[in-house]
């Protein structure tokens, strides 16, 4: 390799080729994806995040939730995603086109969250607050997202956690979620991939003789 110019050109071409192939290639395939207008419901899917949820995404991001949680339901044949109740169908690219930042995730120390707003039975805000406050054996508690305060000189908050057992607070003291906790929970409850796009019909594992 004597010719320095050719050498640099080769290096650059190699990098540019892989970028063009992978990034431009998938952009050519997915870049035109548009929300699907449903005439019966009179709106397009997927929907944008409501304002609170859009802000909650930032909380999800800065706490690093994606370090332990994915947001993607894999096709049947890949693990037990459906059996665990994480989603009735596999995630498709269109599910994510309205999300400014996509957190597909790389690790499942905890459950998948792609459909956390569409669980059966459904989670409500109180469940998630309690989970964040108390933690579990496998998930840390996020107590700094809550404020413990006295109710002596104020109305009890509507959002106050109803804590029982070991976590119960003494009379006159309440635990309320901070703004950040509310945003995060709004984000989590807005995560759902339930709309059936044409390309998202549940795939059953191929059987012998099936078309």
């Amino acid at each position, binding site marked *: 390799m004597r010719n320095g110019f050719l050498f640099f050109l*080769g*290096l650059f071409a190699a990098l540019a080729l892989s970028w063009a192939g992978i*990034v431009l290639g998938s952009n050519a395939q997915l870049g035109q994806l548009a929300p699907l207008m449903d005439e019966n419901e009179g709106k397009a899917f997927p929907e944008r995040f409501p304002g609170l949820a859009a802000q909650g995404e930032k909380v999800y991001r800065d706490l690093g939730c994606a*370090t332990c949680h994915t947001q993607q339901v894999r096709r049947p044949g890949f693990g*037990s995603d459906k059996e665990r109740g994480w989603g009735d169908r596999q995630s498709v690219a269109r599910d994510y086109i309205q999300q400014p930042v996509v957190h597909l995730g790389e690790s499942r120390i905890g459950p998948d969250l792609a459909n956390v707003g569409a669980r059966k039975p459904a989670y409500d805000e109180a469940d998630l607050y309690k989970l964040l406050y108390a933690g579990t054996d*496998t998930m840390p508690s996020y107590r700094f997202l809550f404020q413990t305060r006295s109710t002596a000189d104020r109305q009890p908050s509507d959002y106050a956690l109803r804590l029982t057992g070991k976590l119960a607070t003494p009379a006159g003291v309440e635990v309320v979620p901070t703004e950040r906790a509310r945003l995060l929970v709004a984000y989590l409850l807005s995560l759902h991939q339930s709309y059936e796009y044409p390309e998202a019909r549940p795939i059953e594992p191929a059987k012998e003789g099936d078309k």
Partner: protein
Amino acid sequence: MTSASQAAATAEVTEIDAGARGPVSLLIASGLVWLVVSSALALLQLLQAHSPALLADCPIFTYGRTAAMKETAFLYGWAANAGFAVALWLLARLGGAPLRSTNWSTVGLLFWNFAVLAGIVGIAVGEGNSITFLQAPRAIQPLLLVAAAAIAAPAILAWIDRRQQATFAAQWYAVAALFLFPWLFSAAQMMLLWAPVRGVLQAVSAGWFVQGVWTLWLAPVALAAAYYLVPKITGRVLPAYDFAPYGFWTLIVIGGWTGGRHLIGGPVPAWIPSIAIVSATLLLFHYIIVALNLRGAFGVKSTALRFVAAGLLAYLVGGLVDAVFAFRGLAAITQFTWFTQAQLQLALYGAFSLTLFGAIYFLGTRIAGRAWPSSPLLRAHFAASVLGTVVLVAGLAVAGLTQGNALADASATFEQIAADTRVWLEVAAAGQALLLLGNIVFAYHFIRLALAAVTSPVAPDAVSFRRPPAMEASAS
């Protein structure tokens, strides 16, 4: 000291080394500080995975932030600084001329390390991006890019200034790493931070970037060091050296395509993981050539070379594991588990860091003009690094396989999975503790070497240098 030995010493510690002393030693010193920081954070992360309540009340150490800070300290703190140091020194040595414009490197590395510090503080206070290898806040990323360009400038000048037209494999790899990093890094910043691409394209681009950081930046730096040290220390021409260009171009051309391996089954076009699997297999060609070329590294009595041999072994095993576990049947189990962490640590600690340790032991003597002060410290570092890497990677790998099999079984709850993997995470944490210990020893040893060089500039033990083999700057 006889005049002959003096001549030998001056021939070995040339003006090339003297000219590179400032920036190279500063780069190594800052790299070692970050290495110790990142191994401490890595230990904390494993302990938190083991018992989630640890430091849970402390917002700057949520599990996610600990992991992000560890990654930033390791990649941009240790790996980048050490990689720049080794690449600068190698290109000066192989070019046969002293580095020019080293002030660029010095200023660049000050800004670089400031940016890394700002990035880690940014993550701690909640400004992180939660994107693998781009965790640090958006605002400091351009600073890193500019600083990298400044640090690398003298190295590129050294390539241009080289005394002979023909080049060595070590030069190709070092130049490729320095030249490709800014392109890769700026493209990733644009696509993920400044003008984010739409939807799952973010995950595709992130996969391309993460793989590129390894195959186009860190692995080439390690290979540059190995391709320099093996013939230099053994004093023998590399076997099958004619094939080295094919090995090089295979890595550069194909390496960038293997990024989609971790997206199998996900909401991305299916051809992306497929092409990644094919590429991971094709890349075995590169590993075979590297193994053929560098097989002389094994079984030689030399501290530097023992590190390089261990790193090389990790590199080859890692390549094989990457290829085998890219296949869907196995990847479906290991996806989203500790196993991918094991693969990453085998690459970053095993292949990259061990090789760079070897290079730093070799160039440290040349830069300081004296031998390393203590051989027990050296042996302790070697033992802790190799044993630590093996235990860490093995612990993570078994934890990952256990976790993967349990995840595939819908009746296994996350509590059960955690209970099953806990013991293996303890093993991994023990390995990480060993690595932390080894890294502290190494940092301390480097400080002693630097202090000795500063306090008495004339090396009392320069006699101990070997005469440079005649092949320096003549073989190719």
